[in-house]
């Protein structure tokens, strides 16, 4: 502290550098099986045990009826519901630009899944395009352990 001195950006008004950083002990709690599932090449969603509403994301209780849900495997292929190519981003993602965000729709699921699309030229991305899930071989236990690529690519 103080060894490097204080960076001063201006004196009237006095503007100084102020750093802030923190580490968290973060629990995925009831959503944990989803993240473990990614490391096994599975995409786990939730199906309501009461009304059978089917989510493409983890959710332990149904938004529609409040009943508990059960895990179910979401198909590993779907279609692009919508997309964007980001040329800017939050600071943490600036170095990854341009990147493509997609919402994926699946046969048999009532809701969508947000992910990245890789392995395709941005001009070729279309709503309705078939895509398949790809999984990281070195899981970081983050939602980015899964991404999508065009389904016709091997």
């Amino acid at each position, binding site marked *: 502290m103080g060894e490097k001195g204080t960076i001063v950006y*201006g004196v009237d*008004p006095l*503007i100084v550098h*102020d750093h*802030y950083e923190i580490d968290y002990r973060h629990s*995925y709690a009831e*959503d944990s099986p989803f993240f473990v599932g990614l490391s096994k090449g599975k995409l786990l969603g939730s199906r309501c045990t009461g009304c059978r509403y089917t*989510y*493409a*994301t983890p*959710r332990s209780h149904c*938004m*529609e009826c409040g009943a508990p849900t059960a895990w179910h495997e979401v198909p590993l292929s779907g279609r692009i*519901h*919508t*997309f*964007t*190519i*980001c*040329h*800017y*981003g*939050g*600071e*943490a*993602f*600036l170095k*990854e630009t341009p*990147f493509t*965000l*997609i*919402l994926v729709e699946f046969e048999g699921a*009532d*809701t*969508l*899944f*947000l*992910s*990245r699309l890789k392995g395709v030229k*941005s001009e070729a991305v279309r*709503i309705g395009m078939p895509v398949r899930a790809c999984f990281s071989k070195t899981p970081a236990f*983050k*939602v*980015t352990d899964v991404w999508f690529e065009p389904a016709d690519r091997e």
Partner: protein
Amino acid sequence: MRPVYMISGGITKFAKAHPDKDFRFMVKEAYDYTLRDVPRFSKDMIDGAVGSYFSDHFTRQLKAASMAQDYLGLCPKPSKRIEGGGATGGLCFQSAWEAVASGRMNSCVAFGFETMSRVNTWKGNEFIALASDTNFDFPVGGFYSGYYAMMVQRHMHEFGTTVEQMAMVSVKNHINALYNPYSQKAKRLTIKQVRESPMVATPLTMEDICTMSDGAAVCLLASEEVAAKACERPVKIIGVGSGSDAMRMADRPHGKVILLPHEQESDYAHLKYPGVHSFRGGRMAAKLAYQMAGIHNPMEELSFVELHDAYTSSEIQTYEDLGLCKYGEGGRFVERGTPFMPGIDYGMSLPKQERLPVNPSGGLLACGHPVGATGLMQAVFAFWQLQGTMSKHLGNPTLQLKNPRRGLIHSHAGTGTYITVSILEAI
């Protein structure tokens, strides 16, 4: 519930940065302006306050509203902080309304601020994206402009909305702001310039997206008795409504449209709603506010709208949520010229110019978006508009509509997670 009136308001100039004033000083500036405008009202008539600011990350000061409260000299009167993302200001306004409507207070100050200049724009974008699910959405590339871009891609797919229609919103709001000295980014633009500005997230360019700002705004709300005593031209708040939706866009249903009184189920026989193209929370907010205000056809019964145009696309989406046109017609609504101001030259031909001006002030796109102040800023502009005092406060008469009767203000959070609609009426 008792009738509630807005009796005064004030705002600071919205700017990229106000390093010479901290948030307390900015609030004080807007507060002093507010009190000066009602000389028959005095500080001892204030029963309490509600403060609003969005982000503890930007402020790096928890309980910052307490510091504004003491700076204004309002201790030990009741006070609290309201936070609800982009809708923070609108929620604060409604919280002050509740305090007076319930009879708990006879007058309540709503103050809001944000100081976004303390980090660079892209760090700021990261902070804002923390208002998306941090397990499932943020890590994928947390970026609100990206989320809104995905929503409007779907809107374009469903309804044929075009990027030129979106650009028209940008042209309108930036030109309106030329006559609003409080705005941050007034300028004359063309559709071509909007489209040629740097691409941020397809199809949204820099000129489709609002900027970050420092600023503060204050509204003074009062009971009928206090309003009659203290204010020459109070404005009545005749309706409030709010709504919500799932945090993760991906989780939103694809079901049936929530209908307004002037709509029928057959209007939307094939539309899956809200999906990611529409804001169910905005529709709910509008429905409740119209119900309270007794409005059956908003297009016929409103004189103007100040809505949360963080993006040109979300202004178009919001026309539809508010029932100013049917779902799917938002693009054509702006193309016809319906939401443009009378008497202003926008450099394009507009067959229905001035039917229902939307964002006469310039909106978020041109005024700036100091989040906690934004919803209150809209209330202040709506108040001056309905009072007929725009000329006095802005120094020119261009944005003053002729005898406006009712104005709607709309405040919007996240990807539509909290939305408020409040309706004000001239008396």
